[in-house]
């Protein structure tokens, strides 16, 4: 049962992290790349941390994984928001919006 959960969470995490890598490499501007990184990579790491909690299988590991998850859900969107604000302030070239 635990192995099935670990397998499913591993597969979902691999899919989401691969999507984040594709977005970082191929999307056309800074805002799109920040979107790909903050959403897909955060959820992929959440899946991996859940798999870690089930693989270790103790209450202590569950608390540790929840702590790391809370820290990442707090920090990764915050850094993405900072990057987006700086891109807006600097008027970085945007895809599909030619600069006047």
């Amino acid at each position, binding site marked *: 049962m635990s*192995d099935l959960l*670990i*397998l499913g969470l*591993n*597969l979902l*995490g*691999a*899919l989401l*992290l*691969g999507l*984040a*890598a*594709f977005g*970082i*490499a191929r999307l056309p501007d*800074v805002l799109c*790349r*920040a979107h790909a*990184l903050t959403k897909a*990579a955060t959820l*992929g*790491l959440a899946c*991996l*941390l859940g*798999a*870690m909690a089930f*693989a*270790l299988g103790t209450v*202590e*590991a569950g608390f*540790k994984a929840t*702590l*790391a998850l809370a*820290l*990442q859900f707090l*920090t*990764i969107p*915050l*850094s993405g928001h*900072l*990057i987006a604000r*700086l*891109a807006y*302030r*600097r008027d*970085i*070239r945007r895809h599909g919006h030619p600069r006047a």
Partner: protein
Amino acid sequence: MDTLLNLSHMLVGAALAALFAAGTWRLLRGPSPLDRILGFDAAALALVGYMTSESIRLRRSDFFELILLFTLFGFLGTTWLVLYLWHHPRPTPTEDAP
């Protein structure tokens, strides 16, 4: 079941390697400084994910403090770089090179 688990660990490793490579490429080649900051963030996240996947594979909790530390240092590095650029509004000459 063990074969499937090993296969899923290999898939996670491949995705993390792709994320690290994409982040490093963005760090070296990104057209604007913001792309470089984003690439650094992606590479740091890939390292955190690698530690997590190793602790899944080995079923040990030794890497946990390293996971917390790398998350924190990646966030602090990104925040410091963004705030530095925020408070130094004069762009470098090569900023918007296509």
